């Protein structure tokens, strides 16, 4: 039915204001990344006095951005793969089997999601330091240690979401496979996983995004060689100058891959959320 004028106008006004709010920082990020340093150091201007792409070259020199990029990619990628793979097994067990302790398991997984990261930071910090002292395995400051800490938030989320997705895959599908003589693992990987691909993609995207944007663990658990982008971006402020144009250029460069990936896959995320968490 045709919407009344009051609705159409409210919608226009609201969505216009909201678009402005959303876009404002994006505009600042893009425009400032194309300004010379004098421009970003003095009074703000809507338009650059002279367009320059220099910041995009300088960002790689001022701080070892490429190294941080690789660190972030390795850490976020490994955390994502680990949590999704492990969560697939766990979620399949919870979704398809009855067993003693099932409720305890799901409730504990759910409840860890509400714990603040700071709660795990101090103990994990101590555990890593102690492991380093006693066994010589340097977890503290290593990529492996950081990946482990990232599992504290990506694993429970992945398990929880995948249970929802797997529940939405009709049981008849894998039951038929079992009747046909498939083992449970084969039924999982031949039937359930393919049917839940949108959900798995959504979970993976989400896990990657959170790891890519994580600041707390990254700022405590890394050293010069394992620093991720989250910490590395602070390197553009020196005692004398804050290279705002470079900060904005670097922010844009580190954002484009995740934003593009997210926008490409957001369809799955929305479908997944409908099928999974929100029922």
């Amino acid at each position: 039915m045709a919407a009344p004028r009051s609705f159409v106008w409210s919608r226009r006004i609201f969505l216009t204001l909201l678009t402005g709010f959303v876009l404002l920082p994006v505009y600042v990020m893009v425009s400032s990344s194309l300004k010379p340093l004098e421009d970003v150091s003095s009074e703000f201007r809507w338009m650059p006095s002279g367009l320059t792409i220099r910041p995009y070259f300088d960002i790689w020199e001022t701080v070892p951005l490429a190294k941080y990029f690789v660190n972030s990619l390795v850490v976020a990628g490994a955390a994502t793969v680990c949590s999704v793979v492990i969560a697939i097994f766990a979620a399949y067990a919870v979704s398809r089997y009855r067993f003693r302790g099932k409720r305890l398991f799901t409730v504990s997984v759910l409840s860890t999601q509400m714990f603040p990261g700071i709660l795990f930071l101090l103990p994990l910090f101590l555990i890593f330091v102690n492991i380093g002292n006693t066994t010589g395995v340097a977890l503290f400051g290593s990529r492996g240690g950081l990946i482990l800490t990232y599992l504290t938030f990506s694993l429970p989320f992945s398990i929880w979401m995948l249970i929802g997705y797997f529940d939405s895959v009709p049981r008849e599908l894998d039951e038929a496979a079992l009747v046909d003589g498939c083992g449970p693992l084969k039924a999982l990987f031949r039937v359930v996983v393919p049917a839940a691909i949108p959900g798995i993609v959504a979970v993976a995207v989400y896990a990657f995004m959170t790891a890519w944007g994580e600041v707390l663990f990254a700022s405590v658990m890394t050293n010069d060689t394992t620093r991720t982008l989250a910490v590395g971006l602070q390197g553009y402020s020196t005692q004398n100058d804050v290279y705002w144009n470079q900060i904005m250029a670097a922010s844009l460069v580190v954002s484009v891959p995740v934003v593009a990936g997210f926008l490409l896959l957001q369809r799955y995320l929305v479908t997944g959320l409908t099928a999974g968490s929100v029922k």
Partner: protein
Amino acid sequence: MNTTAVPATGEPAVGKNSPGAARGPRRPGRTRRTALPYLLLLPALLLEILIHLLPIVIGVAMSFKELTQFYLRDWGAAPWRGLDNFRFAVDFDTPAGESLLRSFTTTCLFTVLSVGLCWLLGTAAAVFMQETFRGRGFLRALFLVPYALPVYAAVITWSFMFQRDNGLINHVLHDQLGLTDSPSFWLIGDNSFWALLIVSVWKGWPFAFLIVMAGLQNIPKELYEAGALDGAGVWQQIRKITLPSLRSVNQVLVLVLFLWTFNDFNTPFVLFGKSAPEAADLISIHIYQSSFATWNFGAGAAMSVLLLLFLLLVTGVHLFFTSRGRKATDA
């Protein structure tokens, strides 16, 4: 797809044992049937123990110890302090206790405002965009950009906009609109609370939008058709059909938003650095600062434990009130 061959691994076909599914006479071996889910869970269980259970146990143990930098190398040797760390944390007559209380109330106020605004913006946008119009797909993607941007990239941009001398906010408020007598400070002093709130809402509302949009897809079209037949206009349909149908979605959404906002560390940390101004000293930053700046890990752990108890309480109360009238879903 269903005509797969016998598994090469040679595992015996384990029958499904979903509740009530009594298809076929096959009864798989009892031991097999009970062991398999545990085997599937094993990797997750081991990791959960390592990254969640163990740290929590250690965290609680830490909160009873005098854990300073001297004992970091061997924290087991740190002297036992009993409840002293807790007394230290909640003694509101001392600077430490007073600042914890202030940080806690600030966080509560901040969380209520941020969650409320995120919910409001997200719901309004989702409801307005429920029906198709030109540019809807584009807008939907655009609205998800704040959510997709890495926190540090987005928040650092906001911190640039809030700079006193070269930021956009003061340029607009002072230079262009002349609303303030002199350029204001946004990242120190009382304004910092509002600066943090704006950034938090900007970053958080798209999640509410996403969830509410997903929830809207589950409302049957027939409800609207019936409503239209009964002569309900768009506004009435929103009030009488859309919002009530979103109730269970909202219950989950508000809880998740609450926990995220309350525990948020990333946003204030990138906006303000290691120590936030008093007006915007959220609890996560406060605990971080108490632990790592003064190296008093015992007190930091005590604060963490208190925070955990508070969150458990809130979640428990929430679950108690929302699960009433809802059927128990799971075995």
